[in-house]
């Protein structure tokens, strides 16, 4: 429970910081590029899972 609480609180603090930054003119640009960086990192880390959706069995409809 403690680890989950610390994990959740860390995420919450980070999100709040991003929201505060987004309200500033120069901070909005930083948040924008940080979000795209997160997208790029997710693509890199979950490339196998994303590409596994495009195999034949996955696309085959139930007959």
């Amino acid at each position, binding site marked *: 429970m403690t680890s989950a609480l610390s994990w959740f609180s860390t995420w919450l603090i980070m999100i709040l910081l991003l929201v505060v930054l987004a309200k500033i003119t120069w901070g909005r640009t930083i948040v924008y*590029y940080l979000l795209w960086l997160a997208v790029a990192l997710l693509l890199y880390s979950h490339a196998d899972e994303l590409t*596994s959706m495009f195999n034949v069995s996955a696309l085959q409809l139930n007959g």
Partner: protein
Amino acid sequence: MARADSMATIDLALSQTKLSPAAGSNSSTPAVAPQIAPGVPAPAPLTDKLTGKAEQGEKIFPEETPEIPEVDDAQVEERNTSVFMTAAGSTVNAAKDIWRGTRIKLERLPAPGSILLPLIVLLLFFFLLIPVNGNTRLAWLWLVLTGNAEIGQEAETATPIKSEKGGQTADTTPAPANGNQVNVIPFAFPIMTGAAEDF
């Protein structure tokens, strides 16, 4: 006072160099004594101020030594403090200029699509990558849309439907990369693994 003394000196020199016509015959340039116009009263004899002063032992040019101001520690410390404050102020101003330039460059960077575009993409990844009860949310949605899963009231979870012809239906779910094991939730997603999804 000094001017009067200098004038007295000049007058004394002139009076000493006054030559008579007979005495000035040996000199190349006969000196011409100042002639007083008739009717003009003769000037008063000049007193030898210089010689008078020398006889009296009075100093003609008193020695005046410039006064050296005394050095005060408080004044020195105050001067040093002012120099430090000036230097600190210039440093602060330079830092402000650098920050202003950086802020202007950040504001000028392009941001096509605003912040919503990457947020939408992240939300899409949220549905695409996090498995719930063996399938991702998008996979469950596909199963429901294709009729291969339904939301059952008994278990309150989506369950795959077995076909009437027997045997299980074709597995249309995306094959997990690591077999049947539940994927480890990556750090990027704020949802824990193994949570049962209630539809």
